[in-house]
């Protein structure tokens, strides 16, 4: 299991984190008590009529008949339900879209052709007036230019200059000022793991962020797992390289990508193979060499110091992932895993945790345009639970009413118990991120990331009344 390794890297990460760490002048030495109708602790039974005592941003006590410390600020919501802040273990946050620096004055004021194409594509994709599939977004047979353009600027924000970029950090591409964080907060999500996107075979390192609170305290871990993608995405997002020269733009990085699953798998294998060669002091050579900066990171992945995530949707891709991992003795967590229900015994046997989601009957967006989502199942979470596989639910790019809570509700509608569903968006993802007992539970010593709901969190009619991160109220419903 990867748990120990993850925990180790967590400590390292925590030390290296905090980009704006200065003197901790923001720490409030305040005692806060939240009284609610019910507290889902996730460590045991739910406590009816319980209270949570928070001191210095941490949970001091939770229970039914607690004595309230003198001078404490008491928030009493007798009908409300308290859960830990929700955790999305594979969230997509608005990437920082770089801006034209100088605007008009210089001759390069003009949005590039790429941007324009991508913007058109993006507009088409979210045009609410187009309600039929064929008019949405980029059709399957969209010109290579449109696809490449989409790849270039907006639909992907991963580094495209190489297929193997584990040395790049996702946090650099995350816009910490994005309003997306507020939308996540409104859905009760307090911790997110932002994964690299699927445009590279081996992409950058994800990051763990809190969604609220002072900017300088948002980063939990700057550089976390390396993300690999097995499947069609890396090749789909590129420009097929068999085009006659007059057909496409001038040669770009996009034209030298793998164009098949074989190629994707080859690039993955080659990267780790070269790492092993380099470790032995042998020269590395041949096509698709990983960039030299990637080798130390891949080395750490091989050593288990940096966790690995693999995104794979279809059964045979999951099998490929398992096979490759076995080949290099890697442990990893599986992302997305649409067809996980077809590989339950294998996943169980390999002890691979699954970060499943989003749950859909008809996929949409970029995902819908791939050919990898033909066989979804609505009750996969239930089956994962029945098979005893550790899994978390994720909403990825979905937000607000469709966000993480909705995913859990949808899972419950299709067979998961509410308890299991709640666990899959709190305690389990916390464990997978190496933050067990830090977030995702309401227990003494944990960070006071709490959501106070108007009713049971997985009831369609409930909403967050109050969200706390590190004991600080970051969202409060105006009365």
């Amino acid at each position, binding site marked *: 299991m990867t748990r120990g390794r993850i925990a180790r890297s967590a400590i390292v990460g925590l030390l290296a984190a905090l980009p704006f760490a200065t003197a901790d002048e923001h720490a409030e030495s305040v005692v806060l008590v939240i009284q609610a109708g019910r507290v889902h602790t996730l460590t045991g039974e739910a406590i009816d009529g319980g209270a949570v005592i928070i001191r210095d941003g941490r949970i001091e006590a939770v229970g039914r008949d607690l004595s309230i410390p003198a001078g404490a600020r008491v928030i009493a919501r007798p009908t409300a339900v308290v859960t830990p802040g929700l955790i999305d273990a594979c969230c997509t946050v608005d990437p920082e879209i770089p801006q034209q620096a100088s*605007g008009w*004055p210089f001759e390069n004021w003009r949005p590039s052709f790429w941007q324009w194409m991508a913007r058109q594509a993006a507009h088409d994709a979210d045009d609410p007036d187009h309600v039929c599939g064929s008019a949405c977004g980029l059709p399957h047979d969209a010109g290579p230019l449109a696809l490449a353009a989409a790849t270039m600027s907006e639909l992907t924000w991963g*580094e495209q*200059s190489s297929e193997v970029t584990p040395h*790049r950090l996702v946090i650099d591409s995350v816009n910490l000022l994005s309003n997306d964080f507020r939308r996540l907060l409104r859905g009760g999500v307090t911790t997110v793991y932002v994964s690299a996107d699927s445009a590279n075979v081996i992409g950058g390192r994800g990051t763990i962020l809190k969604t609220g609170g002072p900017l300088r305290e948002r980063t939990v871990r700057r550089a976390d797992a390396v993300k690999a993608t097995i499947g069609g995405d890396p090749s789909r997002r590129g420009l097929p390289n068999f085009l006659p020269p007059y057909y496409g733009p001038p040669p770009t990085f996009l034209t030298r990508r793998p164009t098949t699953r074989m190629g994707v798998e080859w690039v993955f294998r080659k990267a780790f193979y070269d790492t092993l060669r380099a470790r032995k002091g042998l020269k590395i050579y041949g096509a698709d060499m990983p960039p030299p900066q990637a080798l130390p990171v891949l080395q750490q992945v091989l050593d288990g110091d940096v966790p690995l995530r693999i995104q794979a949707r279809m059964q045979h891709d999951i099998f490929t992932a398992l096979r490759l991992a076995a080949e290099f003795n890697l442990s990893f967590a599986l992302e997305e895993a649409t067809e996980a229900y077809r590989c339950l015994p294998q996943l169980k046997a390999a002890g691979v945790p699954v970060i499943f989601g989003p749950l859909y009957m008809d996929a949409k967006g970029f995902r819908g345009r791939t050919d990898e989502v033909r066989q979804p199942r609505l009750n996969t979470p239930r089956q994962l639970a029945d098979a005893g596989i550790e899994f978390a639910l994720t909403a990825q790019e979905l937000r607000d009413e469709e966000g993480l809570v909705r995913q859990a509700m949808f899972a419950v509608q299709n067979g998961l118990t509410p308890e299991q569903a709640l666990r899959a968006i709190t305690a389990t993802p916390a464990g997978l991120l190496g933050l067990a007992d830090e977030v995702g539970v309401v227990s003494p010593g944990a960070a006071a990331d709490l959501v106070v709901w108007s009713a049971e969190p997985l009831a369609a009619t409930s909403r967050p009344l109050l969200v706390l991160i590190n004991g600080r109220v970051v969202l409060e419903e105006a009365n």
Partner: protein
Amino acid sequence: MSAGHTSSASRRGALACAVLMLGTFGVAAWDVPAARGQARSSAGRAIQAAAYVNEQGQMVAGGLLLIEGESIAQIGGDREASEAGDVPVDVYPGAVLSPGLIDCHSALAAAGDLSEREHALQPHVNARDAFDRYSHQLRLALVAGVTTFALAPDDRNLVGGRIAICQTAGPDGWPRVLSDAGPLKLSLSVDVYRPEREPTSRSGALGMLREAIETARAGVPQDDPLTAFAAGALPGFIAAPSGADVLACLQLGQEYGVRLVPIHTRDARRVSELASGQIAGVVVGPLDFSAGQRATEAAALFARHGTPVAIAGGLPAAPADSLRIGAALAARSGLAPAAARRAITAAAAELLGVGDRIGVLRAGYQADVVVFSADPLDLRARVLAVYVAGRRVFVADGGPQSGDVP
């Protein structure tokens, strides 16, 4: 041989320390025989006006300015023209003396492109080499009061090269390079990303920058702009239009101790407080009349939290008076008038590293003076005359009442 060497011996001595610090000056090409013949003697002259802009950017009554050679000998208060002694006096009744305006990021007089796009890291490029001293744009800028501008590599490279500080006129009457040892130019703007070279994304850009800094630090210290930058000795002007870009600058500063000055910043709302005390300054603009409130108030917000602010003019695509337009817009959006005046003079000079030579009217500084008919912030004010390095290079119709006109 440089333009600076044509001045007197004493001037040369006074400049010695600046020379040491700033490295070599211009090159032989600046020595123009035709101009040399017109070089004036070092005899002093005086300018008299009703008020002047002092070092704090405030307008102060009384403006008698004595020039000796290329430098200001005296500036001040309530003195009479007669006190100037036996020197010619240019009298501008009711006028205001301001330091020469400084555009701290421009493409003025650039011969061709200002970026080499083969690779995103071009630290060895120097914008000095793109300076076209015969460009007709220089005169347009000069008559609008711009005496100094930073010729900067454009925003299309992650590390674009070295900024050269140029003047629209010199002591010999010709435009010149004041210093080719300006800050390093970097960029986080969208223009950096190109399909045919690294980086194509922000994580790639910041990653490359980190690698470059780390590589420069790991190597043997040498006379290299990137090494100096990585060591924190040389400031970097970095195109950082959005708030998130400014955050990235703060992050890099925290990680490596590099001195980054965000430029073209258009959004200060959520970062101006964080930036307080963390950066040497920020360059806002260019601003034009169609700039939104968010862009125009950025200067005021940064200034409110104690960050020095300069305003860029965006010459030559922008109108020649865009520096003053930018300052006026910032002033209307809450920047204090004194700070707004400094933003296009002293603050710009300080951020460019030439704050000890130009930018304020102080004895010993180069005599770059613009005579305005009123407060330079007031767009109704006209430029009456411009002096660069003690030499009057422009005078408007109905200029001085006495003194000689070249």
